């Protein structure tokens, strides 16, 4: 049975993460003044910091985290593989390649949204390649293999851009973007990413029953009335559009999609459908909190979000896995 406190706890964690995301930053603003600024009659500079800098960042942290958590849960369920994560279908790498192209050719300097737009285009191109490679088969294995092929190829494209970059600064800029961050994101980024993420969430969250039926294998699921082809189509579209949109604004943020379903699963009845929404909520809370941590941890350069999630995530993940496997 899903623990009764799970949903309220996750929603509370999400709200707390959201409030902290708006409340905490390099400039300290007292809660009273912050409320006044948000209500529209406070210091205009504080108001600008809160609404134009911190609010979009907090929204993106929650949305990107939710998308990564949900995509991880859906893919683990579909592929019946606890190692699956949002990047297995190549959408993350495709989006990253789009962004790298924007940086490499200097397109990113023309307009602040040029980079995310190209990144989304990159994700869609990898999706088309995935369809071409695995479009007709019904087997999840074909999808993994096609995903690995596409991810490796786009990864090679990123390496090529680094290899050919005209000067160290250009290479540095690309590397920095690839580390993943939500720094200096505006409402234009929110407007670009949110529709993609919303489509992704709707497509993936609706697959619960099909994923449950797949617990019995493909024949078992088909005999329970599941249209495997349609399931796969929705999954591919959901991951490519949703994760593509998320990576387009945040850069590559690893481990959230892998870890979150594992953290949530023991608190549910362990069926793939029961893990979906809690993974989205937990992913949102986790990434938004990590983004607050990035701002609080003192460092000469602001730490990148992808670095922090990996450092926080791996030990937590290991401890958790050891406990689950009863090794400790």
């Amino acid at each position, binding site marked *: 049975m899903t623990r009764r406190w799970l949903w309220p706890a996750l929603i509370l964690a999400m709200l707390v993460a959201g409030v902290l995301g708006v409340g905490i930053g390099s400039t300290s603003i007292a809660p009273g003044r912050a409320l006044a600024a948000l209500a529209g009659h406070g210091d205009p500079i504080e108001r600008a910091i809160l609404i134009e800098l911190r609010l979009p960042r907090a929204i993106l942290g929650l949305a990107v985290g939710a998308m990564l958590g949900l995509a991880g849960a859906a893919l683990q369920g579909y592929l019946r593989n606890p190692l699956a994560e949002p990047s297995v279908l190549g959408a993350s790498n495709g989006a990253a390649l789009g962004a790298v192209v924007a940086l490499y050719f200097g397109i990113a300097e023309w307009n602040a949204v040029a980079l995310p737009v190209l990144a989304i285009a990159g994700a869609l191109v990898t999706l088309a390649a995935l369809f071409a490679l695995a479009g007709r088969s019904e087997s999840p294995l074909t999808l993994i293999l096609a995903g690995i092929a596409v991810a490796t190829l786009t990864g090679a494209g990123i390496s090529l851009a680094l290899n050919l970059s005209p000067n160290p600064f250009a290479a540095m800029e690309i590397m920095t973007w690839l580390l993943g961050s939500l720094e200096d994101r505006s409402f234009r980024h929110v407007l670009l990413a949110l529709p993609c993420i919303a489509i992704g969430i709707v497509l993936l969250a609706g697959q619960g*029953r099909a994923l449950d039926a797949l617990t019995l294998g493909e024949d078992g699921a088909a005999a329970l009335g599941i249209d495997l082809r349609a399931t796969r189509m929705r999954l591919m579209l959901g991951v490519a559009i949703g994760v593509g949109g998320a990576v387009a604004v945040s850069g590559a943020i690893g481990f959230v999609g892998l870890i979150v379903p594992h953290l949530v699963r023991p608190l549910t009845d362990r069926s793939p459908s029961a893990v979906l929404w809690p993974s989205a909520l937990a992913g949102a809370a986790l990434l938004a909190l990590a983004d607050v941590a990035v701002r609080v941890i003192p460092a000469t350069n602001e730490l990148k979000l992808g670095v922090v999630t990996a450092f926080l995530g791996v030990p937590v993940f290991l401890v958790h896995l050891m406990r689950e496997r009863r090794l400790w």
Partner: protein
Amino acid sequence: MVSIAADRVSVSLGGRHVVREVSAALTPGRLVGVLGPNGAGKSTLVRALLGLVPHHGNVTIDGIARTAMSRAAIAQAVAYLPQGQVLHWPLTVARLVALGRLPHLAPFSRLADSDHAAIDHAMARAGVTSLADRLATELSGGERARVLLARALAVEAPALIADEPLASLDPAHQIEGMELLRAEADAGRLVVAVLHDLTLAARFCDRVLVMAEGALVADGAPRHVLTAELLARVYGITAYFGEGATPMLVPLDRLR
């Protein structure tokens, strides 16, 4: 009540003819055993009936071409228990059996009281009620086989196709399993079971389909079909035929 008819069904897998032109009309209220040596095409035939494998020839369910039916409609008409199922997540037994209700659930709805009743009933009949809260992945082979049978029964479909439902069951549970399938058939359902135990097949089935090398070589009541000559030809064995009220068929030696 559902009847299933196969008209010259053939399946080729990787260039090999696994099932060759099998025709059979399966009618409600019957327990039909599918017999034959390993690799004779029994599992492939039942998968073809359900449309789980590409095939030539036609399959009709209640007179309607199966290809014209949606997956959901087929799932409501025919429950299927695959052979040697692997469970991919450590679900509890109750949760696993509940999967059998998926074909009946309307979108965005939870299990209704009638669904819970069907789940409890199926678990009681397969004798796994006491296992309800155990993890299905941690059961013994025999317990798991009964849980999976309960999952198929929970569909409450008018037809049930079970692929080796008796595998890894002890003698008592094998008999119990056959009694269960017999009761399903007596309640008016069509039950098709892939079996290996000749005595149990002879004792409980109304009709047996015997397959060899993909072809249907015999079809009829067990006592007419299961002869020394057929066992020699299909399985390459001799057998002891017991005389008496309950048929008995004990394989003795290989013919070489």
